[in-house]
């Protein structure tokens, strides 16, 4: 118990610290972009949020497969926790992306110019469906089984959605490539650091959220014992 507590503490501090450093890099260290100006600084946290969302759903896929193979409830808890965190970060990516689009194209929702924004919002819908499914199924074991299957199918569809959205947009001229191929070295360093910081934050949140899942299981078990105790 004390050892797992220590891992929690280390991760808490590490993620807090790295997020502070990330903020410093984004606002002070990284140079201001020439054409877009300060607004470009949204890029660092926006893309990192999208990355965490994507990574979280990948973890859900792995958790789903592991649950189906071994039947260990902990994997289901990890999968569910990861979906929750992934949805939070995807929502951030969608909102910050929309704000950025407003600043760049003067439109909150640029269907044509920014297919990636559309893609991320489809991710949001996919995994909202995952949560809805869990809420509508009776029985813990069956809930976990169905959710695992849906988590697998949903993630397999992501590359297809990505490609079709990409190709769909190709008929229209690409007005403006957002990332460009040449980020200045200081910008690239900032971006990479943000990715690392967000990944640490993800694991910290996953640890806490999984602990919550285990507590819920424990409470459920105690309730069950009380019920059988009264019955017998």
């Amino acid at each position, binding site marked *: 118990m004390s050892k797992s507590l220590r891992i929690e503490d280390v991760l808490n501090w590490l993620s807090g610290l790295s997020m502070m450093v990330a903020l410093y890099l984004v606002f002070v260290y990284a140079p201001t972009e020439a054409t877009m100006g300060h607004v470009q600084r949204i890029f660092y946290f926006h893309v990192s949020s999208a990355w965490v969302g994507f990574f979280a759903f990948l973890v859900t896929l792995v958790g789903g497969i592991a649950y189906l193979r071994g039947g260990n409830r902990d994997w289901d808890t990890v999968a569910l926790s990861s979906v929750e965190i992934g949805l939070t970060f995807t929502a951030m990516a969608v909102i910050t992306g929309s704000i950025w689009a407003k600043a760049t194209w003067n439109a909150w929702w640029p269907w044509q110019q920014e297919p990636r924004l559309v893609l991320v919002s489809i991710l949001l819908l996919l995994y909202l*469906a995952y949560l809805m499914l869990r809420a509508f199924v009776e029985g813990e074991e069956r809930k976990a*089984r*169905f959710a695992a*299957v849906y988590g*697998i199918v949903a993630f397999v569809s992501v590359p*297809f*959605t990505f490609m079709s*959205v990409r190709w769909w947009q190709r008929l229209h001229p690409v007005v403006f490539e957002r990332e460009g191929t040449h980020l200045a070295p200081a910008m690239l360093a900032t971006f990479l650091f943000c990715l690392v910081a967000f990944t640490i934050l993800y694991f910290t949140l996953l640890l806490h959220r999984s602990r919550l899942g285990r507590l819920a299981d424990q409470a459920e078990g105690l309730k069950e014992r009380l019920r059988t105790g009264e019955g017998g």
Partner: protein
Amino acid sequence: MSFLNKVLAIVGKDVVAELRTKEMFSSMLVFALLVIVIFSFSFELRVENVAQVAPGILWVTFVFASTLELNRSLAMEMENGCLDGLFLAPMDRSAIYFGKMLGNLIFISAIEALMLPIFSVLFDLNLILPSLLLTIFLGTIGFAAVGTLLSAIAVNTRAREVMLPVLLFPIILPVVISATKVTGGILDGVPLADWAHWLRFLVAFDIIFLAVSYMTFDFVVQG
């Protein structure tokens, strides 16, 4: 019984049941007409070239019709307790998957075959083209492959009629996007080379989702 015979037995039972009642076909015919009338009123009065909106209308109709069919397919089994009997039958669960999938594929294709001439007449467009039929067939395999798995999940949930579209639509979105694009290309007379990559895309989707659904179906129907 060989694997193939088992699959065909399940398909046969569904087809015979439908041929007796003709519930599906009569209701789908009315459904298709209604959809076309609704779309005509909401679009056509303002659009000068029907070919521009036809692909979208066609595929939205197909998606809704498939959802209705998939919901009905397992709900019917559920109501009469047939589903439990089916799963208790001494056979490989994957035979059930392929049986139900083929049944759904046949029914959805039949519905689409019913709708195409109606669309052609009412929109005054020739939709019965070999390339278009191929596209529709590939798209329908995608719907049936994912839809059979997800309807088996949805039928075990509360509010199952709502659950199926919520689960299904975001996953078949790539099929809808690519099929609509190809249909548009065919109607505009764009040469094959320009949309061949979309057809390959559809084939890849079909193969991968048949494989994934086949592998996971076992976990959905156990217990």
